[in-house]
């Protein structure tokens, strides 16, 4: 019997788990896939939005601004990389000036903190000398920043686990129903559970769970965005996240540095039907480059290290759907969370947890420890720190991922931590091993070995992301005998 079951281990689900762990409460998070941070939370633009974009009065506007203000504390408490590098919304025609003015006004109404003003071409070029020739002026958003979305999600989960929340992965929820005693029954691949409250943080599938319990039907469709990532070599081409003036479909294609030093270009915005269709397409990738070319002329194709796509959970109302469902008591929605979802996630989590605490009359957890330390990053250490790290744990002396300088010690720790890595992609998100320019060609054989060792499984059972995503098919020789 649980007090709260959270469906979905994305940034919102894990954030709610952490915020709930501030109370005396028995929480269980159920994640469908082999790992947390495996959907929208892993494939997005990694921006902390300033809050100028959402229509005033919407939940998006409210939680964007609230969430934005929480990132300094997140950085301090959870050791998550955050950089306030500002955002620039660039216009390419002086005729667009009123549109920029409108954004500026919107930002003011939303309560966007920090500097917010329109800069002319001269200032724009002085700040960003590599911006395209057509650029005319820009909205400068001082409260714009960047964050590592994986580390944010993992940090929420680790801290929640430390403070008592339970996590189950490979636990797809198939049914949620009301029991005669007024509690909820949640049927999952990992067992059937009884709980007083349910949080629906199922991302792209959050409509499914709402619709299981509520007559106020919700429809969510995937809006796919395709991205390129460029090598660290180009990290200084732009300092700010470079937006283009938004369109109806989204904030347009941006060019933005990431906290890891790579450059992100994207996303497109394409409405699709299939909630699992995370392919990249020739058209989408071409469009990404074509449109980004206005911001960054002559994008160096030699610099590409990978492409990916992500699905946004786009709802019918155009806004987030949050809070207790009217006709389903103690069923709390975190639905239709698309951009600025990542930015809003800490505030959504806090607010949702407060709602639940209020309804369940939860007492504060006196043992709550808000602090989570990141896995020490060898690549960011000074030589003295490195020497000390190796002295304390010789596995720091073994570099496994050459491109990102990730050591065996970091990889082992990423597996051993609470809610630790279970597969190759999980290690990648927690340590960056395999995320560099060779895209795991060099480190995969060793990471497979380490995972097998740590999890006590055969290397043949090691997967890229759970399920049937095995890396290898068979041994050639069974410990000396021919493998028939």
């Amino acid at each position, binding site marked *: 019997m649980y007090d709260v079951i959270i469906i979905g281990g994305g940034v919102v689900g894990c954030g709610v788990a952490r915020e709930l762990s501030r109370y005396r409460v028995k929480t269980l998070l159920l994640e469908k896939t082999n790992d947390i941070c495996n959907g929208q939370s892993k494939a997005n633009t990694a921006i902390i939005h300033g809050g100028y974009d959402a229509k005033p009065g919407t939940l998006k506007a409210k939680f964007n601004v609230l969430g934005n203000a929480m990132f300094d504390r997140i950085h301090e408490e959870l050791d998550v990389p955050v950089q306030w590098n500002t955002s620039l919304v660039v216009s390419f025609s002086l005729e667009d000036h009123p549109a920029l003015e409108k954004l500026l006004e919107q930002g003011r109404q939303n309560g966007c903190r920090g500097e917010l003003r329109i800069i002319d071409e001269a200032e724009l070029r002085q700040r960003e000398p590599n911006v395209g020739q057509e650029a005319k002026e820009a909205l400068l958003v001082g409260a714009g920043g960047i964050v590592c979305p994986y580390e944010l999600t993992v940090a929420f989960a680790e801290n929640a686990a430390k403070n008592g929340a339970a996590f189950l992965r490979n636990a797809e929820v198939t049914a949620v129903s009301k029991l005669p005693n007024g509690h909820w029954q949640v049927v999952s691949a990992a067992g059937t559970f009884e709980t007083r409250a349910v949080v629906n943080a199922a991302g792209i599938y959050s409509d499914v769970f709402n619709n299981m319990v509520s007559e106020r039907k919700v429809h969510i469709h995937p809006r796919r965005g395709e991205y390129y990532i460029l090598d660290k070599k180009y990290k200084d081409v732009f300092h700010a996240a470079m937006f283009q003036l938004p369109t109806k479909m989204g904030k347009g294609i941006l060019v933005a540095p990431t906290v890891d030093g790579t450059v992100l270009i994207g996303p497109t915005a394409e409405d699709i039907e299939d909630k699992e269709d995370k392919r990249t397409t020739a058209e989408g990738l071409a469009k990404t480059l074509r449109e980004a070319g206005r911001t960054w002329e002559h994008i160096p194709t030699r610099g590409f290290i990978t492409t990916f796509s992500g699905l946004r959970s786009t709802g019918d109302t155009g806004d987030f759907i949050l809070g207790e469902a009217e006709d389903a008591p103690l069923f709390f929605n975190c639905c239709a969370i698309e951009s600025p979802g990542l930015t809003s996630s800490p505030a959504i989590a806090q607010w949702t947890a407060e709602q639940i605490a209020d309804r369940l009359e939860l007492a504060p957890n006196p043992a709550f420890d808000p602090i989570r330390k990141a896995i020490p990053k060898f690549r960011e250490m000074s030589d003295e720190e490195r020497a000390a790290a190796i002295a304390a744990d010789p596995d720091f002396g073994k570099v496994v991922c050459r491109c990102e300088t990730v050591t065996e010690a970091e990889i082992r720790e990423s597996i051993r931590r609470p809610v630790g890595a279970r597969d190759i992609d999980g290690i990648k998100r927690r340590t960056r091993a395999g995320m560099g320019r060779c895209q795991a060609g060099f480190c995969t054989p060793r990471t497979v070995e380490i995972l097998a060792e740590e999890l006590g499984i055969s290397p043949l059972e090691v997967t890229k992301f759970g399920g049937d995503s095995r890396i290898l098919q068979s041994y050639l020789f069974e410990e*000396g*005998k021919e493998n028939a």
Partner: protein
Amino acid sequence: MKYELTCINCPMGCRITADYDGKEVTNIQGYTCARGKAYAQTEITDPTRMVTALVGVEGSHAPLSVKTQSPIRKPLIFDALKVIRGTTVKPPVHIGDVVIENVCGSGVNVIATENVG
């Protein structure tokens, strides 16, 4: 019978055609130099290949690399591979050690190409 082959002696990769009745190669065409003609002659009458492969090592999943000491007749390749694949060695083994004698009656030994143990 008509034969068509690509000469492997240089990047030209001449397309050579020839006739072969089981005894004599005739009507060799398409080569540019003498090496090409000679290649066609041998490749048609008695094609041979070096075979490099892997054998098992006792107590380990990691294999040991081996090769035929000299080229063997091409039609024997897959028979030889089957025998090689079914072989397990006990360390230590050194480069040049004979792993299989006279593989498939070819008159050629299979030898280790790396050291183990």
